[in-house]
């Protein structure tokens, strides 16, 4: 049996490897690393913000084209998206969700109620905004905020994350 005429192995150019992997890393960060998994946490919402969050998945907004998606568990999440005034009965649930979310993580307070308690400020049953319980990175006001406002907030976080 004759040996195939393949050329003998030569050591790859280490300089070229270094330069290629640097370029790949930069491109991947910008092109592939732009994805956020969002866990929605309701802390007492009237369901208005939820209606607009659901609208984000319709064909007009289609948030998955930006690499944004809702997930079922805080353990899979990069972002906790909080809606509703922080009721006393849901404070523990929010804190458990925050503890269960791996670092690095972000918290977005969506809607006037999550920002500061909204119209429910001062009730015996309501503490106020999300920030009273967990650190908030971004707030999006509105009652409820329109889907395009929520979307631009999420995209801003995406850009900041990629930068």
């Amino acid at each position, binding site marked *: 049996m004759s040996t195939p005429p393949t050329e003998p192995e030569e050591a790859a150019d280490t300089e070229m490897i270094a330069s290629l992997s640097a370029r790949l890393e930069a491109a991947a960060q910008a092109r592939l690393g732009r994805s956020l998994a969002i866990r929605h946490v309701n802390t007492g*919402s*009237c369901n208005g913000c*939820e*209606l607009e969050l659901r*609208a984000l998945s*319709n064909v007009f907004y289609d948030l998955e084209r930006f690499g944004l998606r809702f997930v079922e568990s805080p353990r899979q999440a990069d972002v906790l998206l909080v809606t509703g005034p922080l009721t006393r009965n849901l404070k523990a649930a929010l804190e458990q969700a925050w503890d269960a979310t791996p670092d690095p993580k972000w918290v977005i307070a969506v809607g006037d109620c999550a920002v500061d308690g909204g119209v*429910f400020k001062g*009730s015996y*049953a309501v503490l106020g905004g999300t920030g009273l319980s967990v650190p908030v990175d971004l707030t999006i006001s509105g009652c409820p905020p329109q889907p395009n406002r929520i979307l631009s907030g999420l995209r801003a976080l995406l850009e900041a994350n990629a930068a």
Partner: protein
Amino acid sequence: MARGRDYGAIMTDSAPTAGGTIGASPAETCKPWHRHDLTAADWAATARDAAAQSRVLLAHWADASRVYALFLDIDANAAVPISTAVEGGAYPALSPLLPAAALYERMIADLFGYRADGAIDPRPWLDHGTWPGAFPMAPRASPPRPDFDRFDPGEQDRHMVLSIGPVAGLIEEAAHLRLTLDGPAILGAEAVLGFTHKGTLGLMRGKSPRNAARFAARLSADSTVAHSIAFAAAAEAALDAAAPPRAQRLRVIMLETERIAVHLDNLAEIGRLAAARSVSTLCGRLRETLLRASQSAFGHRLMMDCVVPGGVGADIADGGAGALLRACADIAAGLTEIRRLHDGTALASRLGGLGVASGTVLAASGAGGVAGRAGGRAFDVRPAFMPAFSQMPPAVTIAAAGDAAARQAVRIGEIGESLRLIGGALDALPAGPVALPLPQTSGEAIACAESSRGDIWHWLRIDHGQIAAAFPRDPGWALWPLAESVLKTAMAEDAGMIRTSFALPASGMDL
């Protein structure tokens, strides 16, 4: 399941004197009906009569001195409000005869501290042991109650228990559902709500109807128009005022627009859960088209705060009618395709026979709306109780099977009927003002509206232009107990689909 829990002698000093009403049952004015203020014995007797005559308990609530109940008398086409004074911090429970009263009794005990003597379930409901004080609606502050054991601790050893929520699913309202399982079959289902309790009754008290309307609008956002209309109509009736004809007609347009939007959202969600992508895409697109039309017609996608006591917040915008009619035409065109997709094998086989609610279980729950009509209960408050619909009565869609497929068929039928109503109302929009100021007088009234989930009732007592007491009855009070009994014969994997099929709400009944 009811484990004894004695609240002790709570609030004995808050009970008023009976005021010589014993045996006389004087009729108070509770517009448009008379409220009979009964002795404790007559109150209990009324419950027995109601159970015997299958009258439906619509609502049960309290204020600083009394407990109230609202019954539906189907034969007389009337709502019958009754009340009795709370004496020694207690009143006779309705729940032994009318199980639908149980959740209301737990709510009344939590907010006011009144003990329902003989109640079938004395456990707390809204109070999760986190408030700064117990009985927040009572005249005197009490120290907070500790948290409590909701469930039988031994149950976990005997059966597998699946706990869902309050943070669960993708984007949902906060509620906790506890399923006891035998393999894949559900043996028991119990819901725990109250997580989103925001103290709405306390926030409404002492405000003018105009200022309190924003809380009515935020009880449940997908019924924001329905709750706002029932609240505004109650305030207007209590103060002997009426919204102008143009406002009445605009309210009809908003209510039917909301119904279509919520039904489309539900069709899209059921489609998503059943992996029927074409349904969820189509219904999601049509819903968005309608919300954009609402934005241009009324200035808000969900029409929140657009209905106010005395009329509507603003007239329909220039070009708004055209935008709504174009959206309605899109939906009408899509409806044929939606029907075809629901008759197809994928959805029909997934939804057929699932989550059956009919017969005596349905009747006892008092559930109306889609859940009631899909099971043959032809109750809709629009023709009988909403004067704005008297000139344009809706055709009520009814099905018999009571399963998830029947509920979707009713939803689709109602979309078609709402399209017709919107077209008719826009065609004949009377000229004139859209709001009138309300007088600063006193009065008591009950009014209702048919939301996408069923009948909503608001009771109000206004004292010199300020709300003295209020209670909004969301359809959730009837839907959750109904869903619990339906889930008890279901499979665990179907629980999410059944929950969505009933469109179970949380915020509206969490108050």
